[in-house]
C-alpha cells in the first residue's frame, strides 16, 4: 500500500448523464505541487468535485485511491476525514452559522475521524487560540470568524475564508479550484503567499488555475493540461509558463482528437 499518494486511475465521471471525464490518470504525492490547466469546460472542476464525492458527479469507471482505500466508495465527509480538502471556486453561504462554530465542528471531525455526532468538540479555548493565530497569519480581522459562513463575503473574503479553513483542517491533499478567480492582483499575490505560509508545501497540492501569480509562491513540480475530459500533456513549471503566454491553440493542434471531444462537449452544452 502506498501511503500519502493520491492516485487517480482511468477516471470516468458523468454529470446528469453526460460523460465529462473520459479516463483521467494522475498521481499526486504529499509534498508535490501540481498545476492543472486547460480551457474552460475541459473538466478541471469536475475532477476536483469528483475527488471530493459531489453526489451529482457519478464515477462510472476508474478509481481514486488514497492509502489503499478507494475513495469512490466513501461519503464526502469520510474523504475529508482522510485528509482531502477542496477550496471551492464559488463556496456556498450557510446562513446563520458562524464561521467559527462551523470550523470548530469541522476541526473536531477531521482531527478525530472516529468522532460521532454529539461526541465532544475540540476544546473551545484551544480552538479559539489556534483560530486567532491562523487568522493573524492570514492578516484577517478576528471579527470575521463571527460572520455567517460565506454570507455577504466579497470575492476576496471568500477565498481567504477557504484558505483559513484549509489552514485549520491541515489536510494531506488539497485541491485549489481557481482560488485566484475574481481577485485583483494584490489579492492573488496574498492568496499565493498564504498558501505557502500555512504549510501548503507539506501537502499534496492540486492547483487549478488560469493565473501565473497563484503559482508565484507555489512553483509547480508538474503541470497538467486537460482537454476534452482527459489529461493530454504533462510537463514541468515551464509548461505552465508557456500556456500562460501562448494559450491552448498549440495543444489543440497537437491533440486533434481531444480538441474534437472538446468541441462536441461545448456544442452539447450550448444546445
Amino acid at each position, binding site marked *: 500500500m502506498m501511503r500519502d499518494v493520491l492516485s487517480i486511475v482511468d477516471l470516468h465521471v458523468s454529470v446528469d448523464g453526460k460523460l465529462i471525464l473520459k479516463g483521467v490518470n494522475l498521481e499526486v504525492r504529499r509534498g508535490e505541487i501540481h498545476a492543472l490547466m486547460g480551457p474552460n469546460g475541459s473538466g478541471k472542476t469536475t475532477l476536483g468535485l469528483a475527488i471530493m464525492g459531489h453526489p451529482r458527479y457519478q464515477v462510472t469507471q476508474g478509481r481514486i485511491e488514497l492509502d489503499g482505500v478507494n475513495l469512490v466508495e466513501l461519503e464526502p465527509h469520510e474523504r475529508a476525514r482522510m485528509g482531502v480538502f477542496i477550496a471551492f471556486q464559488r463556496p*456556498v453561504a450557510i446562513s446563520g452559522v458562524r464561521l467559527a462554530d462551523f470550523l470548530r465542528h469541522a476541526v473536531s*471531525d477531521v482531527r478525530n475521524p472516529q468522532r460521532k455526532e454529539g461526541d465532544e468538540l475540540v476544546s473551545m479555548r484551544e480552538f479559539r487560540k489556534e483560530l486567532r493565530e491562523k487568522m493573524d497569519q492570514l492578516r484577517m480581522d478576528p471579527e470575521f470568524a463571527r460572520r455567517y459562513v460565506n454570507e455577504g463575503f466579497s470575492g476576496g473574503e471568500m477565498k481567504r475564508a477557504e484558505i483559513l479553513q484549509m489552514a485549520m483542517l491541515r489536510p494531506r491533499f488539497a485541491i485549489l479550484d481557481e482560488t485566484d478567480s475574481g481577485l485583483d492582483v494584490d489579492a492573488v499575490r496574498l492568496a499565493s503567499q498564504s498558501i505557502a505560509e500555512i504549510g501548503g508545501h507539506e501537502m499534496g497540492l492540486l492547483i487549478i488555475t488560469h493565473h501565473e501569480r497563484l503559482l508565484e509562491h507555489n512553483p509547480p513540480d508538474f503541470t497538467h493540461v486537460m482537454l476534452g475530459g482527459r489529461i493530454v500533456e504533462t510537463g514541468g513549471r515551464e509548461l505552465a509558463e508557456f500556456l500562460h503566454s501562448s494559450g491552448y491553440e498549440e495543444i489543440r493542434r497537437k491533440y486533434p482528437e481531444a480538441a474534437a471531444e472538446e468541441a462536441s462537449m461545448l456544442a452539447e452544452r450550448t444546445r
Partner: protein
Amino acid sequence: MNSTSSATSAVSDQGFTREQFEEHIASRKQPSWLLALRRRAMDACESLPLPNSQMEEWRRTPLRMLRLQGFAPLAPRPETVPQVPSVLEPLLSPGGRLLTLDGRKVAGSLSEKWVDRGVVFDCLEDSALGPQADLVRDSLFSILDWNYDRFAALHTAFWTGGAFCYIPRGVRVDEPLFLLSALGSGQADLGHLLVVLDEGAEATLVSETASVESGGTGLYCGGIELILKPGARLRFVNLQNWNDAVWHFAHQKAVLQQGAYLEWTLGALGGMLAKVNQHLILDGEQAEAVVNGVMFTENRRHLAYHTLQHHKKPFTRSDLLYKGALQDRSHLVWRGMIRVDEGAIKTDGYQRNDNLILSDRARTDCIPGLEILADDVRCTHGATAGRVDDEEIFYAQTRGLTKREAARMIVTGFFQQVFDRITIDSAREALAEVIGRKVREYR
C-alpha cells in the same frame, strides 16, 4: 374542498351552551359592565357560525375533529398545585411570577420593589373587582374584537381567571415578569391576558403555555391585549408549548400609541392545531413594532397564523419575521397583511415568512398581502419555502461533517437569523436550546 354542509355538520355545535353559560356566570362575582359584555358575547356566540372551510381564514385549517362539548368551561379546582414543565423558567430570574392552571390563578408573586412602585401582576378576574377595577374596566376588551368570530365570542363570554399586568407611568421594570399557563388533561383554558403600559413605562413579559401531562387533549381559547401608551416600551414573549393533543385558538392584539415600542416574540413548539390571529395596530406617530416568530412543527401538527400590521398613523414602523421548520406530516399556514391607512405617510412596513421543509409530506402555505391607501410609504414582503440545500450539505461534508450533522447545523442557522433579533437573552437562549434539541432529534 368540503361543502358547507359537511364542514359545518362535522364540527360539533354542542359545547359551551347557554345553560353552561348561566351556570358559569352564577358561579362568580363580577362587575355589572363585565356581566353585560359576557351576555352580549354569549348572544353573539349563538348567532355566529362555527368556523368552517368556506370561510377564508379557515379554508386551510380543518376543524372536523374538534369536539367542543368534550370540554367543560370550568374545571374543578385542583387540590394541589401541579408541577408544570417549563422551558423558559430555568433561565429566568423573574421579578414577578404567575402560574395559572386551566386559566385560573394557582400561585403568584411580585417582588416588593415593584409592588411599591404600583406595578400590578395578578389574576385579571380578581383585579376587575379590586383597587384597579376602573383601570380594568377601561382597558379590558377595549382593543380586542370580541365578536371577530365564534371563538372570540366564546372566549369573551366564558373567560376565567386570566392575568393582568399594569406598569404605571414612567416605571421601568428591569426584571422579567413570567406568566406560566398550565393546562390539565381534558381541560379548557379560556384565560385572558391584559397588559397595560402607561406613558413611558417599560417592561419585559414572558408568557409560556404548558400541558401538565404529556398526553391528553385540551382546549385553549384565549385572548391577549397589549396596550402601549405613548412612549411605552414592551418586550413580550409568548411561547405556545402545549402537548401535541391540544387545540389552540388565540386572538392577540397590540395597540401602540405615539412613540411606543414593542418587541413581540412568538414561539410555537406544540399543540395539535393552532389558529392564531396576531394583530398589531400602530396608532401613534413614531410607533414601532418588531415581531419575531419561531415555529417548529412535527407529527400532524397544524399551525395557522393570520397576522395584521395595521399602520394608522404616519411615521410608523413594523417589521415581522416568521421562521418555521416543518417535519413529518405537519402543516403551517401564514397569511400576512400590511394595511396602511390613508394619510399614514412615511410608513415603513416589512413582513417575511421563511419556511424550511424537512419532510416530503410536510406542507406550507404562505400568503403575504399588502393594502396601501397612503402615498409615500415603503412596504415590502416576502415568503419562501424550501428544503435544506444539497449544495450547503455537500459543502459542510467536505469539511468533515456528516450529512446529518450538516443538515442540523443548517436548520439551526436558519433560526439564528430570527434569534439575532430577540433582545431578551433568556428567551433567546431557551428558544435556541429547545430548537437545538428538536433539531438533534430530527431524523
